């Protein structure tokens, strides 16, 4: 719980720092998706925090209450279902990174489409948001890889 609040706060701080210039990546969502890999069957412990975090984000930054909440919830459930459908031996850090990148791209695209499409400076903001998400995605993918390696060792 504390880690979720901390991640949301960090994302909020970055947005306050970069407001007017860039959109920060959805660090909170990326972290939540990473948490999902601990126990993919515990959907409610990922989806509802995603909803609440998204709603707070809307109230603070987007002026469209419910938009980010819906996008986060949908992305969270899609990731849970997708991750559950991958057989255990096939799960790896590369696949997880791709899933995180797709999740970030989906949320960004939904946001930009709601503002009237990706053109001009919005394209730069979109590309920046995706690129800025990459370091966090790499860290999360390495975390998941380490966790899976530990689990394999135990079994």
């Amino acid at each position, binding site marked *: 719980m504390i880690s979720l609040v901390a991640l949301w706060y960090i994302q*909020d701080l970055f947005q306050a720092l970069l407001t007017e210039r860039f959109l920060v990546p959805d660090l909170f969502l990326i972290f939540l998706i990473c948490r999902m890999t601990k126990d993919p*069957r515990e959907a409610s412990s990922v989806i509802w925090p995603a909803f609440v975090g998204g709603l707070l984000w809307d109230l603070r930054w*987007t002026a469209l209450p*419910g938009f980010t909440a819906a996008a986060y919830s949908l992305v*969270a459930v*899609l990731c849970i279902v997708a991750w559950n459908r991958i057989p255990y031996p096939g799960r790896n850090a590369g696949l997880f990174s791709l899933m995180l990148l797709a999740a970030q791209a989906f949320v960004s695209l939904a946001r930009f489409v709601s503002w009237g499409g990706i053109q001009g400076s919005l394209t730069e903001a979109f590309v920046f948001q995706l690129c800025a998400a990459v370091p966090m995605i790499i860290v999360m993918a390495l975390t998941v890889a380490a966790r899976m390696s530990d689990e394999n060792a135990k079994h």
Partner: protein
Amino acid sequence: MLKGVTSAWLHGLAATFIGLLFLAVSFGSPVADRAAELTAVILEYPERPALWTRRLASESVAWIGGVRKLRERVRSLELENARLRATLLERPERAISPASDLVQAWIDTRPPALWWNEVRIDRGSSDGIREGMPALREGFLAGRVSRVFPGHSWVDLLTSTRLLVPVVVEETRDLGVLTGDGRGGIRLLYIPEEKELRPGMRISTALVSDILPAGLPVGKVSDLVPAIEDGFRVYPVLPGVDFSVMDSFLILTGGRKP
């Protein structure tokens, strides 16, 4: 695993549906506005480190800009000052009250969904800010204060469709009304069809109220072809402010000379 997936779908779709329901009922609702205000107020203190860092970075960049740039700016302001003094001698009614002051306000929120409409600033009624006060940027009018709270306020930008500003074309003294198109553009309305303005003509605020003084520069007539609507020409305007790059305003408090 199947049970887990089914449960995920149920939770996920329920949360998505509730989110979309919120979106449908809250858009433009005063309750949502209040909730957003409350969230901003609660987060005001935790976000301060970011705002301080932003200011520090902005001021450092300005400082690194160098003395040469500042000298050029001082020279240009001296020239402008001399020109304005001369204008004031001719038109004393344009003088701004000595009680007027400029309060620097930093933009702390710019909701993307209302990008061209409004921004939130970190100054409020406790700093002397009142509704209707002009917000200036680099000497040009950028917008007007629309809502005031004790510690912060909202500023309607010139690019907003909600803001209507009476203006005058300096060279011809034609009066018109300036409004935004909500997409980053500004238009000058109500110029009679028979009047033809030239690109580059300067536009400034007209004398209409004590709180918005006359003579504040706004921008220039664009070289784009004007449209004709209901017997009036609608001129696109080149604003003096770059609305894509703004981090602060100067709020002109006080009023016109009595």
